[in-house]
């Protein structure tokens, strides 16, 4: 809502003319100011004048000598323009006036021997356009001697307000006037909405067959002369953001902006049978609206029809057939009330939002149709020369019953924290048009017809707070009942800290992907990630599915970085994925577990001159998961090879918590998928379910480290490739004895080891808690370790 302060002055005399101060008041009232536009003429002291005489200049060909009256009698003005003659009404800058933003003061001066007492101005000289060829010739409506700036409705300031949807009443000049009057504690006034007597009787009849139209008023106005509306009206409309079209249309828009009540003008001669019927749309009925679109109607729609066919879409937009045109002479002024939800649905169904529907769907003052109709008739008479016929025809199906609200004083105190006396509450409510009286412990209030938002006690509490001013309530700070992060929340932060410490940066990606992303991953047909929940109304294909995996987003991010010259990428994201499982019962949301995904591209390890950076591979991923687990005290991570897309068939693994629970997969991306994202080298990805990692691991107990000496020995085994390093470590660790650690340190394939076999060397450290181990004990443990691995099919290298 754009509010011209000059226009607003018709309804309220504000105690200040400072736009900033008025804007502050509107902000404090809850009408958010989005901007202030200040409008000032580029000139000062320009008056409307009439050219009395025009004569040739005695000593010059290019200029003429005129006498101009600006209200104090004729005075000589020399003028170089030729586009006017005596009798023309023109803007005149007399000595003392200043043009062009102060840079062009007008003085009395001699032009070729003749004294010129000022200047007749062109549009360009007044900053009103580029036309400098001739002076501005005004029409006869400009009164001689008046300030020309006044006719341009300047100076002015336009305050752009964002009106909240609960306040349709504030989408009008009088609504804003009422709010400001209440704020400043002053009066405001309505424009003239008194009825104009009509001549004769009108043939107009109005019938309402559908009570989604609670009331409908109509009046015939004859003898309208179509043409432009007066400049002041055009300027006001323009400042409100509405284009001027013609006097009849402009008056309709003007009344809507002034009173908040949409109105409509029919060409009455096109209303068949001089009869208006408000009814539901017929199935299959067609109506072409003013925007030229043919609409297919149905019973959900509400239509204003004449004897023959529908002529406008109720509360939304007029029809082409009954539109006023240059040849219109008789007008039917329609002002009606409409059921807000009906209009909302109708405008949504037809994707047709108009200034009228925007107001009706929020709720227009139900008492306004009659005064608005009178107002429109008056303005038509004033600006288009029309004369009303007969009486206003009013048909009402549903009378307005205002809500009576009983506001307990205790509710005010409980909500606002201040015990306000009933008198103060009433003082705040009355200027808003709320009729309120006090009882012992309540204020009983009657809802104004223009306030659909005031129906409950709490609604009045808000009004009291608003008018008293939010700033008047003293601040206090209660503290919570003891809070803090949960174990899971603390562990999630530690997990993130560990990830960043391990060199990964946190990414954020959208929760969507397209079908193509799942195809590019090459997931197996029965992979649950294949069945994604569809977004019903996506704006783009890439947003058509809810993500079932974080990998597409992370791979997109990796690609973006590689494309921008960042070759080593290490990114993670913790976010929800969405699984399309059957909803177990009504109203149950799908499972949406939090997942940790990561992607590594390029090399890892410390960097620098001559450094030994290692290209990432599946081992980097496994190592990362182990380090993460260690950082949050998860214990040992089990690793089991799997062949599952999107992973490389031989370089992927599931990872298991120490209690055997699988919590994710990690490995190298299948080369096909890596190619689909255009990523070079081996690409490492992992996806871990977060919940098992964040779960409280329970209390842990201290283990006293042994101070006894240790004994280390190395064993190298030749093993079939089917035996994993983990199995070897496990077999050795299972040997009963003082084993402290078993760490593989060398892996060999090649000469000396047969195909299908490999050699694995492990370092075994023994240490007893209470004594030094004897060399016999160490030798015995060595033998038992060898025997244990032999059970797996391994032989001591060099002993085969």
């Amino acid at each position, binding site marked *: 809502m754009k509010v011209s302060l000059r226009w607003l002055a018709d309804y309220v005399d504000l105690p200040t003319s400072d736009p900033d101060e008025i804007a502050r008041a509107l902000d*404090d009232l*809850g009408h*958010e100011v989005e901007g202030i536009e200040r409008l000032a003429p580029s000139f000062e002291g320009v008056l409307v004048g009439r050219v009395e005489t025009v004569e040739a200049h005695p000593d010059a060909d290019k200029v003429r000598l005129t006498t101009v009256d600006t209200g104090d009698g004729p005075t000589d003005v020399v003028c170089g323009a030729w586009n006017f003659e005596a009798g023309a009404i023109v803007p005149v800058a007399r000595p003392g006036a200043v043009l062009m933003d102060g840079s062009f003061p007008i003085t009395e001066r001699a032009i070729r021997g003749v004294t010129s007492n000022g200047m007749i101005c062109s549009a360009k000289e007044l900053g009103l356009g580029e036309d400098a060829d001739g002076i501005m010739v005004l029409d006869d409506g400009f009164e001689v001697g008046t300030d020309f700036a006044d006719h341009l409705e300047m100076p002015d300031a336009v305050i752009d307000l964002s009106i*909240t*949807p609960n306040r349709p009443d504030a989408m009008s000049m009088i609504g804003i006037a009422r709010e400001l009057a209440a704020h400043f504690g002053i009066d405001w006034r309505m424009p003239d909405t008194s009825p104009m007597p009509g001549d004769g009787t009108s043939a107009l009849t109005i019938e309402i067959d559908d009570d989604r139209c609670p009331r409908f008023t109509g009046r015939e106005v004859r003898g309208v002369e179509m043409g432009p509306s007066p400049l002041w009206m055009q300027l006001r409309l323009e400042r409100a953001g509405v284009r001027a079209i013609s006097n009849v249309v402009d008056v309709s828009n003007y009344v809507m902006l002034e009173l908040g009540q949409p109105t409509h003008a029919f060409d009455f001669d096109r209303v068949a049978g001089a009869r208006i019927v408000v009814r539901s749309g017929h199935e299959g009925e067609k109506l072409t609206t003013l925007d030229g679109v043919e609409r297919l109607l149905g019973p959900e729609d509400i239509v204003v029809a004449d004897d023959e066919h529908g002529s406008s879409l109720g509360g939304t937009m007029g029809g082409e057939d009954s539109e006023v045109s240059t040849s219109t002479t008789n007008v039917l002024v329609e002002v009606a009330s409409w059921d807000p939800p009906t209009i*909302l*649905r109708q405008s949504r169904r037809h994707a047709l939002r108009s200034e009228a529907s925007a107001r009706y769907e929020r709720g227009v003052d139900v008492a306004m149709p009659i005064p608005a109709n009178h107002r429109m008739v008056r303005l038509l008479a004033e600006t288009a020369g029309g004369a009303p016929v007969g009486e206003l025809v009013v048909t009402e199906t549903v009378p307005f019953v205002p809500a009576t609200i009983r506001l307990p004083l205790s509710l005010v105190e409980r*909500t*606002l*924290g201040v015990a306000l006396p009933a008198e103060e509450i009433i003082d705040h409510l009355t200027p808003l048009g709320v009729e309120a009286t006090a009882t012992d412990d309540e204020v009983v209030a009657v809802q104004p017809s223009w306030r659909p938002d005031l129906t409950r006690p*709490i609604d009045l*509490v*808000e009004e009291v*707070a*608003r008018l008293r001013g*939010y700033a008047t*309530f003293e*601040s206090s*700070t*209660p503290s*919570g*009942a003891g*809070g*803090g992060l*949960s174990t899971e929340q603390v562990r999630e932060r530690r997990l*993130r800290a560990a990830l*960043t410490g391990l*060199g990964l*940066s*946190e990414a*954020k990606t959208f*929760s969507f992907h397209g079908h193509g992303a799942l195809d590019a991953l090459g997931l197996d047909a029965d992979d649950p990630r294949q069945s994604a*929940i*569809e*977004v*019903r*109304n*996506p*704006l*783009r294909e890439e*947003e058509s599915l*809810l993500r079932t995996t974080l990998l597409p987003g992370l791979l997109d991010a990796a690609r973006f*970085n590689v494309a*921008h010259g960042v070759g080593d*990428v*290490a*990114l993670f994201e913790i976010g929800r994925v*969405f699984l*399309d499982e059957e*909803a177990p019962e*009504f*109203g149950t*949301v*799908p499972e*949406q577990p939090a997942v940790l995904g990561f992607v590594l591209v390029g090399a890892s390890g*410390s*960097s*620098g*001159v001559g*450094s030994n950076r290692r290209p990432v591979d599946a081992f980097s991923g496994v190592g990362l998961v182990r380090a993460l687990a260690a950082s949050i005290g998860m214990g040992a991570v089990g690793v089991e090879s799997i062949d599952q897309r999107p992973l490389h068939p031989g370089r992927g693994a599931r990872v298991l918590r120490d209690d055997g629970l699988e919590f994710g997969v990690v490995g190298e991306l299948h080369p096909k998928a890596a190619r689909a994202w255009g990523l070079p080298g081996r690409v490492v990805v992992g996806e871990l379910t977060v919940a098992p990692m964040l779960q409280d691991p329970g209390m842990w107990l201290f283990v006293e480290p042994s101070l006894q000496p240790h004994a280390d020995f190395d064993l190298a085994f030749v093993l079939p490739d089917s035996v994993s390093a983990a199995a070897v470590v496990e077999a050795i660790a299972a040997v009963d004895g003082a084993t402290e650690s078993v760490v593989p340190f060398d892996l060999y394939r090649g000469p000396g080891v047969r195909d299908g076999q490999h050699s694995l060397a492990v370092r075994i450290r023994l240490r007893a808690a209470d004594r030094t181990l004897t060399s016999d004990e160490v030798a015995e443990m060595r033998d038992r370790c060898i025997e244990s691995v032999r059970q797996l099919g391994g032989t001591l290298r060099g002993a085969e």
Partner: protein
Amino acid sequence: MDPRLETLRTQAPGLVDDADSLEALDAVEQQVVGRASPIAEIRRGLGQLPAEERPIVGRAVKEVADEIAVLVDRRRSVLEDEAETALLAADAVDLTVPMDERATGTHHLITSTIDEIVDIFVGLGYRVADGPEVETGWYNFDALNTPADHPARAESDTLYVDFGEPEDEMLLRTQTSPMQARYMQDHDPPVHVVVPGRVFRNETLDATHSPVFHQVEGLAVDTDITFGDLKGTLEHFAREFFGPSTGTRFRPHFFPFTEPSAEVDVTCFGCDGSGCKVCGGPGWVEVLGCGMVDPAVFDAVGYDSAGVTGFAFGMGVERMAMARHGLTHIRHLWENDLRVLGQFR
């Protein structure tokens, strides 16, 4: 005293001091106290001396030998220090050369901003909750006093998903506010909770809008929560988050699930109120929406609206983070450009 000892005693300091390397010192040591030295000779001859002279000569030899040992040790220590100093000098490196550089990652700006916001409320005794992103229409709208035909429920505003029965009206939550209802259903008052999370709107990405963004919701419910408590709490938050001199302005506003409702502006942290690019001139930056919980919400979740009052607030994480750090386009938060992520701290 044996003249050989006398000579040794006078000559030894000079010899030791003249040794200019550890090797030379070893040779001097051999010369003055080694097997072929006069000291060794005298010691070897002790047996031939008369018994009464032996202790006298023995003491004299030991005295001289000890003196020399001290000199040698002192000289050796000096020479060792010199040798090590030379070694270390040769071992010097240019430490400006990157050689063993460790990469660390960064937390995303959205995460660190959420943590920062959340921690302020944790300090006030709030708990932190998390809720589903795919949500039902009931929680996202109905429970929050938003009628069935409210414009926000239109497909042009809200993203709907195909899941469950059509009547389920399954959607991507448009706000973190549905967690108000879920939390109150699961917890009796008093309630003090903040809920950070992702929210969704049917919008295309532009400089300031994204179909996915983040909010932090807050809710406090007790028997005696007032509008003053709301103001005080958020003023405290603004000072903690934006700086101790931050001013706050509460403007009436409309939200379906709070009444009275307010939007909160803070004095611009870019210019302290005099007008700049961050605030666009007026010196105020709008940062959050809030209000007293509407009784209809209490009724919807089964709280006794006659017995409790409460306040709720919600703030956009991206908006605050971008304004504070001067990000020019919201895409910088979603592209995951490591050159951008590396700036986050």
